C-alpha cells in the first residue's frame, strides 16, 4: 500500500467517522466513549508486531508492555460497554 492509498482510506474513514458518530443517539454517549476507548486499542497490532520481533530484545519488551496496556483497555473497554448497554431496556421488556 502506497502513501496515497493509505491517505485516501484515511480521508474516507474520517467522513465515515463523522457521519457514524453523529448518528449515535445522545442517550448512548457514555457507552460511545467507552467503546471508542476499546477500539482505539487496536494499537495492539503495533505492540504485537514489536513483541514478536526477536531481533531486538528492548523493542520486544517495550512491545510486551504495550500489549498488556492495550489488552487492559480492550477487555476492560468492551466489558464495561457491555455492562452499560445491558442496562438499557425498553418498556416492553421491563
Amino acid at each position, binding site marked *: *500500500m502506497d*502513501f496515497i492509498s493509505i491517505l485516501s482510506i484515511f480521508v474516507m*474513514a*474520517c467522513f*465515515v467517522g*463523522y457521519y*457514524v*458518530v453523529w448518528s*449515535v*443517539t*445522545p*442517550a*448512548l*454517549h*457514555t457507552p*460511545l466513549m*467507552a*467503546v*471508542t*476507548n*476499546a*477500539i*482505539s*486499542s*487496536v*494499537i495492539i*497490532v*503495533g505492540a*504485537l*508486531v*514489536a513483541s*514478536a*520481533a526477536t531481533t*531486538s530484545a*528492548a523493542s*520486544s519488551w*517495550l*512491545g510486551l*508492555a*504495550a500489549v*498488556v*496496556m*492495550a*489488552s*487492559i*483497555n*480492550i*477487555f476492560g*473497554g*468492551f*466489558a*464495561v460497554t457491555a455492562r*452499560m*448497554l*445491558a*442496562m*438499557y431496556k*425498553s*418498556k416492553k*421488556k421491563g
Partner: protein
Amino acid sequence: MEHTVLPAWALLAYLASGVLFILALRGLSSPATSRSGNRYGMIGMAIAVVTTLVTHVPETAGAPDAVAIAKILAAIALGAAIGVTTARRIQMTAMPQLVAAFHSLVGLAAVLVGLAAYLNPGAFGILLPSGAINPDSRIEMGLGIAIGAITFSGSVIAFLKLNGNMSGAAIMLPGRHVINLGTIVAILGLVGYFTQDEALWVIAAITLLSFIIGFLLIIPIGGADMPVVVSMLNSYSGWAAAAMGFTLHNTAMIITGALVGSSGAILSYIMCKAMNRSFISVIAGGFGATPDAGGGAAKEQRPWKRGSAEDAAFLMKEAENVIIIPGYGMAVAQAQHVLREMADLLRKEGVNVKFAIHPVAGRMPGHMNVLLAEANVPYDEVFELEDIQGEFAQADVAFIIGANDVVNPAAKTDKSSPIYGMPVFDVDKAKTIMFIKRSMGGVGYAGVDNDVFYMDQTMMLLADAKKMVEDINKALAH
C-alpha cells in the same frame, strides 16, 4: 516481516476489522441495536489480534520461538484479567474517571509502540535499503509518540482531578500560554528535525516534552471542565492510532483512528455547543474555578418557599403529568434507584411520569441516561430536550432533582450570564416546580444564581437528593 509482504487474506482481514468497528459505532444509533454493535466491535478486535499473531510469529533461527509466543500470550492474558476485573468492579458513577484512566493506557501504549518501532525499524518494515529509517515513517512515528505522550499525561491529570486525588481547582501558572506555545513549537521542530537526524536524543526529547506539555495543558483546566478534556483526549488517542496505522500501513488502525478521532472531536463539540462555550475557552482553562467564587450573593435575599417531602408527595399524587429533570446532583447523591421507585409509585396512582434529559446534564455526555438505565428506567420513558420541551405547558409538576444550570432561565434572557445562549428546559411553564438541592447557597457548574428558586410556583426541597426522594416515597406509599 515487511508489511508489504503481508498475505492478501491478512490485508482483507484488517479491512474487515475496520468495517466491524464502523458497525460497532453504528449500532449505538439506538439502544436496541447497541448490544450487537458491541459484539461486532469485539469480533473486529479479535480478527485484528489473531491476524497479527498469525502473520507475526516470533522466530529464532527460522523456527517458531515458543518462549516468545508464551510471553505474548501471557501479556494478553494479564491485560485481560486486569481489564475484566476493573470493568466488573467499577461503579457507574465512576465512569468519567475510568474512561480517563483507560485513555492514559492507550496513550502510553502508543508511545511504547513508537519507541519499539524506533528501536527495531526492520520489524515494522520501515527500513530503507541504506539502513536508515524511512523519513516519512519518522514523521509518523514522531507525531504518534507525541500525541500518545500528551494523551497519557493529560489523561493522568484528568483522572486524578475527576477521582478527587487532586484538587479540581484550576491551577494557573504565570506565563503559561507562552510556555505551552513554546513547548509545542519545540516538539514540532524536533519532529521536523527527526527526519534529518535519527539520533536517540531527538526521539527521547520529543517523548519527554510531550509528556510535559500534556501535564501543562490540563493542569490549568478546572475539574468540572474535565469531561470536555477527556473527550478531547479520546480524540487524540484516535489520531495517535491513525499515525501508527500510517507507519504500519494497517487499514484497521487507520479506520479506527479516524473513527475514534472523529468521535472525541464531535463529543467535545457537542458539549461545548450545549454549554454555549467555545472549545478554546475550555482549553484555555480557568472556568471550572468560578463555582468556588460564588456568584450573585446579593440576590439571595429574595423570598422563596420551602416545601417538605409530604407536600411534594401530596401534590404529585394529584397531578396528571409529572416531568422529572435529573442533573449532576442526582449522580452525586446516587439517587437514581429511589427516583425510579418514585416514578413507579406515581404511575400506580395514575400519574403520567416522564424523564427529561438535557444534553449536558451531569458531567459527561449521556451521564444521566446511563444512570437511569442502571436503575432500570426503560429508555422509552426518557426524552431529549427537543422532544419534551413542548410538554411543559401541560405539565402539573416539573420535578428538578440535582439539576441547576440546565433549567436556568438566565440562559434565555440574561446576556451577561456565562450560560447565555445555552438551550434550557422551559420549567417555568409548568404549574408547579419542585427543586431538590442541598442548600440555597450551592450553585451549579456554571456558578450562577437561578431565578427559578424564587418563582411563585416553585417549592424548594432542600436536602440530599436521595434522602429527599426516599422521604417522598414513604409519603407516597401511605
